């Protein structure tokens, strides 16, 4: 990738403009069309499938902007599906924005079918990737042996759906491909949280410098400065951990990606919660969008099973095995 004459950061301006356009687009198909037109849905898909064939680090600034800009589309899922199905017809359809697709992140179906959940925007797409108990996954088509039911959802931008599968058919991913997808998802979710956290911090810092109490801006008070400094530390911790996970020099990519995601969930929620605190009563209003970032971070934690992953971390610690020895994938 070193022969490319552009860097991941070169995507952020484009991505920001697209996210702004998406914010006023009519519906999900319109948003996906905008994203596809800019090439962002297929950023990770091979060029043969109509994508850009770029490495994971190029998706990071794009998803960071998506997180900051409250993007109401399953972009992370779309990027990953277009990459995972490389070489199958469906990859080009997803990369090109022709087939709207998402992933049901929680639960597994057996050979006969079953119920899975936490599919962001599952009620508004055509296809959903569902995981199977044997470690593989299948992309089912809604209305053809599978139904989506909108669920209660903390996340407002990407409401989740439950998927009931009766007839299991569609293109499949093998267990290795599924593992690679889950690994990449950990880093990319962290990128979404990074963007949401950056925006929450920026809003809090701006507000603290505008709002005057006791004759001074809030930012003149050390207690408020320290709140903001801790939020800054949290944001930079997420950023640096993502960078480490993607670095060629990282000794333990599996543990690093997992820790990046688990840590980002806690840190991202911390930033949003503290940004609300710095806003006072204003922070508790529906119109100030900080709660949207908080809802998003908490929902991403559930979709990525952050709580369960802590058990994996402990198992790995107890195994006495070095983190380096964890098999790499993806």
């Amino acid at each position, binding site marked *: 990738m070193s022969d490319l004459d552009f860097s991941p950061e070169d995507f952020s301006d484009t991505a920001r403009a697209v996210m702004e356009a998406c914010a006023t687009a009519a519906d999900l198909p319109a948003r996906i069309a905008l994203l596809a037109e800019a090439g962002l849905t297929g950023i990770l898909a091979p060029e043969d499938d109509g994508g850009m064939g770029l490495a994971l680090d190029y998706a990071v600034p794009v998803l960071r902007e998506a997180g900051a800009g409250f993007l109401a589309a399953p972009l992370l899922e779309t990027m990953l599906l277009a990459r995972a199905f490389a070489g199958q017809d469906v990859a080009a359809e997803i990369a090109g924005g022709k087939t709207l697709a998402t992933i049901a992140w929680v639960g597994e179906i057996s050979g006969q079918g079953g119920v899975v959940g936490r599919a962001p925007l599952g009620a508004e797409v055509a296809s959903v990737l569902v995981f199977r108990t044997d470690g593989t996954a299948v992309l089912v088509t809604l209305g053809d042996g599978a139904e989506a039911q909108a669920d209660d959802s903390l996340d407002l931008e990407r409401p989740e759906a439950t998927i009931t599968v009766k007839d299991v058919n569609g293109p499949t991913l093998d267990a290795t491909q599924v593992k690679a997808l889950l690994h990449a998802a950990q880093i990319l979710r962290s990128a979404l949280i990074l963007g949401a956290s950056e925006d929450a911090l920026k809003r809090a810092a701006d507000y603290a410098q505008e709002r005057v109490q006791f004759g001074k801006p809030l930012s003149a008070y050390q207690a408020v400065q320290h709140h903001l400094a*801790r939020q800054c530390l949290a944001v930079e911790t997420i950023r640096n951990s993502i960078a480490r996970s993607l670095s060629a020099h990282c000794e333990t990519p599996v543990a690093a990606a997992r820790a990046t995601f688990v840590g980002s969930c806690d840190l991202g929620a911390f930033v949003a919660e503290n940004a609300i605190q710095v806003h006072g009563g204003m922070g508790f209003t529906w119109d100030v969008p900080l709660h949207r970032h908080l809802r998003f971070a908490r929902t991403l934690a559930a979709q990525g099973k952050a709580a369960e992953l802590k058990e994996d971390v402990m198992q790995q610690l107890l195994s006495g095995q070095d983190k380096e020895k964890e098999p790499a994938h993806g």
Partner: protein
Amino acid sequence: MTQTSALAVAPSETRSVGPQARAWLDANLPDALREDMLQDNKPTVADLCDWEARLHKAGLVGSTWPEAYGGRGLGLRAHLDISREIGRTPMPESVNSIGKELAGPIIMAVGREDQKLDYLPAILEMRDIWCQGFSEPNAGSDLAGLRTKAEKTADGWVVNGQKIWTSGASKSSRCLLLARTGSVEDRHRGLVLFALRTDTPGVDIREIQSIDGERSFCEVFFNNVVIPEEDMLGSPDEGWAAATRVLSIERATNRMHRSWRFENQLNHLVSACAANPATRKLVEVDYARQLADVSVNIDLLKGHVETLVGSLIDGNEIGPRGSLPKLFWSEAHQNFATLALEIVSRFPPDMSDPLRAVRRRMEDIYMKARAETIYAGTTEIQLGIIAKRILKLNQGK
């Protein structure tokens, strides 16, 4: 070991020197220095100097210093690779980290060639142990308020005043001394740095007992101490710039091994508890989730360290960003120490030696960790740096 150097071939920047460092450390660390074993006696300063001189001979210390000054001339990436292995090894902290990680880099930055040739190899060979004479009774966080005075005379400089919290001063032979040439009102102007010999007449060093029971730091008094001109570092007005550089190094790259040492401490605690039926439940059930959080924090800390190293290799300055790893590490490590103390407090009275060893180590870490949010700039000072210099918040003045 017939071969003394761990780094047999000068490694290219792309191949990790880690495995060679690992092999050397495994073969050479004496049991008497192992922090994960029960020790009857503390190692003496002489034992530690001997060990550290061997580390240098093996190429594991001073890797980034030019060969002319006793180093290996390798890059920061090699230093990171070696630091990881040093961290993974339960060995004592250096008694000369001030020399190796603060004085050395400063001398390289502002020293004259003859000073470099004189001071630098002596640091790596452990012929000189350095201390850092910055803080004073009335100048801690507000370092620019220091009063120790240096006056230029025909014989050199005459210094009067007092330093405090000077780590390792009673064991040191040289002091990186920050003093002022003008008046206190000059604040950060007119500050001068010296490489003072601590056996100079008029230097009086008194140990202070610290909460971990050690006599690790000292008060140092200067009564008409004459320092020859050739022991001044940089120009008389360069002290503050050099000092802030020292502090930014201290925060960012000093003890690069600490994430991996932290991990070694966690692994020691977990493996010792898991190996014993009387304590297994503590780590497998009772504290499993909190221990997982510690492990995640260690990875996040590595994210700061490794990304910072990458950024330095790309030629970027550290600046205020050095506050990020310092703040993150000190608080994460303190939280770990508190958790570890609670876990070892539940060990049975008839505990085995391995459990006693881990309990002793964790108790010591807990007490020592109280200092981690104080030295090298307190937590409140780091938060202030982030607010002012990274976020650039309106101070309302």
